[in-house]
Structures are given as structure tokens and as C-alpha cells.
């Protein structure tokens, strides 16, 4: 039955281009969220933007691929046309041009085994989740007194670690939490051991590791449970798996990656000889500095002794004396002056007083005439008569006389 003849007689659904493209995109992305595709690289182009464009081909088909800059930056080889690779990515649609493509996260040369693929996938996933972020990595203590170790109890790794610890840093206590390090269930055991050591008080760091072996032997350290246990550890974890060249997921999550188990011990344990050396250095610095202080102080003391400051109190006394003398002198001068002024004022007054007194008049030759016997002062000749007795007072002495004649 054709659509147009349906009983509902509605018009057929007409998609807009962007609409159908979007739906196809969702469909594809949901169906192929993360797949591995193997093929031969062609048209490989590294764009200046950092994005990489290429196709994967086989005898019968071709798949466009894009690898964006952040993913392309992690490429550990340079792909070129014609080489066979495995790509991890999701199928998506480039809506503008309407074609589907593989957005690749990871590109590996073909021929690497399944373990390597699993490794890369887990690595990619945990990195996405931020388990490798430096901000989660805890710094190692300078003088760890309790060190947790997760490894096989019979392995050379433990023996090496203990030997180096005993030599370099015998102050520490090593708390070994034995664990199988390879085979089924080893990863879970390792993870559990890390958790257990985290529950022990005072454990300051944990070394997790084992000696060298094949990729399969080391595999436990590439498992997610171990990665998560390291990530959730409250104390810093040092991974020490296999040899220098072996990298495991544990190495990426751990705060510090040691190339080998003995190297881990060297990294976490301070060298006792260095510390003794440092102690002696510190002590001689303290002595030298204190000696300097003593020297500086005695020099300062000597300088002070000779200083103007210490001589000054005496100077001050002398200066005050001088000042006092000065003041006394000035006071005396001032007083003397005052007295002189006073004295001359007094004598002026005295002479004025004297000049207006009868004695002064008398001394100039006048005399006072008093009528006797009542000694009444005579100021007119008419008060007198012939033979009237009078007393004449001179400046010095007096005389009694008789009037001879009166002229009026």
C-alpha cells in the first residue's frame, strides 16, 4: 500500500536535509560509539590546524576518517599512505557535507596484539576521566617513616626494595602487603592490597610493583581495578613495574613512576649518608652564623664604648654646668643693672626732695625768722616791732636777736 493512499490521508513526511542528516548522525553515533577499524591509510593529510584527515581502505571499501588535534597530538608514530593501521573511534556524520566518517581517537600500526589494543583503550578511557591528571598526584614525603609495599612476597622485587631500604633509610618501617602480581585475580588482589595499606595508620606512601616479565606477566598492572585503587589511594603511590622500558597503566595513574622496583626504593628513601652530611652542614652553618653574631656583637660593643654616645652624659653635665654659670652671670648682670637704675632713681628723688626742703633753702643762705617767745614763723616785717626778740635759724645753727628797726 502506498503512503499516499493511507486511511489517514495525511501527506507523506518530508524531512528537511539537516533534519535527516541529524537523525542519521544520531543513529550512527548510537550504533557505533566506539569501534576498532582496520585498514590501509590513504590520502593522509595533516592540516596546519593540527587536525588530521585520511581514509582507511581495503579491497572493497573506503572510510573517511578525521582525527582532531587533541587526539592527533598523541600519535606515537607517523602514519603515511599505504600502511596498515587499527583505528579506534566512533562513526559520525559530517553534517555540512552529508557524509559519514570515522572520528578516530587512536591510531595504532596494525599487527599489535589484542592486549596492546586493550591497553590503549583503557589508557584512553582513564585519561578522558582524568585519572592521569597531575592534580591528583600527591607529593612524596621527604622522610617516610612507614612505607607500604605491594608485591609478591617471594619475588626479587621485594628483596631488592628491602635491601635498598636497609642501606639507605633504615629509620623506616616497611609494611609489606603480599599480593600475587600475575595471573587471574592478581589485579584484584593488588587493588585490595593498596586499599588495605590505606587503612593502616601512618603509612605515608605505597610502592606497587613487580620485577620484569612479558607483557602478559605485567598485565595485572594494566587493569582498571589497579588503576582505580591507585587513583583512590590517600597516600602517594609509586609504581615500579618490570623494567625501564615497560609502561603500564599503573605508571600513568601513580604519582611517581619508578623504572624498576629497586629504583622505586631509591626514589622514596632518602640516603642516610646524605642526611648525615646535611646535618653536619647545617650544624656548621649554625656555628658559623653564631660565630658571626658574636663577632658582630663584640665589634659593636667596642664601637659603642668609644662612641660619642657613651661620652655624652659627661658632656651633658659639663654643658649644664656651663649653662648654669652663664645664667648666673647673666642674672647677676641683669640684677646689677636693675639695682643701678634703682639707685640712681632713688638719688634723683632724694635730690628733688632735698631741693624743695627748708634745709636746702637755708643752705643757700636763707634763714628762718621766728618771733620769740612763741616761735611763730615771721613772714612779714610788720609783725615785728623795735626790740622784739626773734630767733634766726640758719642752715647750721641758730641765733637769738633783737629787732633794731622795722621797715614796712
Amino acid at each position, binding site marked *: 500500500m502506498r503512503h499516499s493512499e493511507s486511511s489517514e490521508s495525511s501527506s507523506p513526511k518530508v524531512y528537511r536535509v539537516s533534519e535527516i542528516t541529524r537523525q542519521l548522525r544520531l543513529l550512527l553515533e548510537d550504533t557505533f560509539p566506539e569501534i576498532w577499524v582496520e585498514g590501509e591509510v590513504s590520502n593522509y593529510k595533516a592540516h596546519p590546524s593540527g587536525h588530521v584527515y585520511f581514509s582507511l581502505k581495503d579491497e572493497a571499501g573506503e572510510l573517511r576518517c578525521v582525527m582532531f588535534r587533541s587526539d592527533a597530538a598523541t600519535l606515537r608514530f607517523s602514519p603515511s599512505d599505504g600502511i596498515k593501521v587499527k583505528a579506534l573511534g566512533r562513526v559520525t556524520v559530517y553534517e555540512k557535507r552529508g557524509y559519514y566518517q570515522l572520528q578516530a581517537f587512536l591510531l595504532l600500526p596494525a599487527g599489535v596484539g589484542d592486549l596492546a589494543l586493550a591497553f590503549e583503550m583503557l589508557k584512553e578511557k582513564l585519561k578522558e576521566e582524568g585519572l592521569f591528571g597531575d592534580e591528583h598526584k600527591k607529593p612524596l614525603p621527604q622522610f617516610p617513616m612507614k612505607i607500604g609495599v605491594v608485591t609478591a612476597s617471594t619475588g626479587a622485587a621485594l*628483596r631488592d626494595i628491602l635491601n635498598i631500604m*636497609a642501606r639507605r*633509610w633504615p629509620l623506616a*618501617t*616497611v609494611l*609489606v602487603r603480599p599480593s600475587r602480581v600475575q595471573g587471574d585475580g592478581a589485579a584484584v588482589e593488588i587493588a585490595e592490597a593498596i586499599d588495605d595499606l590505606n587503612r593502616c595508620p601512618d603509612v605515608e606512601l605505597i610502592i606497587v610493583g613487580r620485577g620484569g616479565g612479558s607483557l602478559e606477566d605485567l598485565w595485572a598492572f594494566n587493569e582498571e581495578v589497579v588503576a582505580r585503587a591507585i587513583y583512590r589511594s590517600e597516600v602517594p603511590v609509586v609504581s615500579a613495574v618490570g623494567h625501564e622500558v615497560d609502561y603500564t597503566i599503573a605508571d600513568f595513574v601513580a604519582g611517581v613512576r619508578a623504572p624498576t622496583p629497586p629504583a622505586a626504593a631509591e626514589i622514596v628513601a632518602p640516603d642516610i649518608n646524605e642526611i648525615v652530611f646535611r646535618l653536619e652542614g647545617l650544624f656548621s*652553618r*649554625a656555628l658559623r652564623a653564631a660565630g658571626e653574631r658574636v663577632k658582630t656583637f663584640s665589634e659593636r660593643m667596642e664601637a659603642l664604648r668609644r662612641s660619642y654616645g657613651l661620652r655624652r652624659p659627661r658632656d651633658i653635665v659639663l654643658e649644664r654646668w656651663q649653662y648654669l654659670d652663664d645664667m648666673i652671670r647673666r642674672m647677676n648682670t641683669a640684677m646689677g643693672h636693675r639695682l643701678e637704675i634703682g639707685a640712681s632713681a632713688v638719688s634723683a628723688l632724694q635730690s628733688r626732695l632735698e631741693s624743695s626742703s627748708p634745709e636746702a633753702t637755708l643752705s643757700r643762705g636763707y634763714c628762718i625768722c621766728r618771733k620769740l617767745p612763741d616761735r611763730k614763723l615771721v613772714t612779714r616785717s610788720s609783725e615785728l616791732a623795735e626790740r622784739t626778740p626773734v630767733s634766726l635759724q640758719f642752715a647750721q645753727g641758730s641765733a637769738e636777736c633783737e629787732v633794731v628797726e622795722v621797715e614796712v
Partner: protein
Amino acid sequence: MKELKFEEQMKRLEEIVGKIESGEVGLDDSIELCQEASGLVKALKKKLSEAELKVQELSKDSDGELGLSEDEGEE
């Protein structure tokens, strides 16, 4: 905690040296600090020379209980 003492003493020693060197303490204090430093160095050296690595094993029984057993330190 006794184990933490080493780091604390080391820190104190560094602090003392820094104090004396900075010249911010007086003469009496620097002499006193110097004596303290001497005591610290002696104590630290003693700790270092007498130290012997202790090895313990953390084991877990079937009930998931953790247990400690002490080993002799390896030479």
C-alpha cells in the same frame, strides 16, 4: 608520634640555622639556638646510626581482618 619526630627535628634544625643566619635574633638567643642545634644534630645522628630497618607483614585472614606480623630487618 615518635616516627614523625625525625622530620620535625630536621625542620627545627633548618629553622634554627635560618634564624641565626638571618641575624634577626639577638646574641644570647643565637648562642642558645646554637646549643639547641648541637643537641638536635646529636639526637638525629644517634637515631640514624642506631636505626635498623623494620619489616612488617600485613596479612588478611579469611574474614578480611588485617593482621600485622613483625619480621627481622634484612641486612
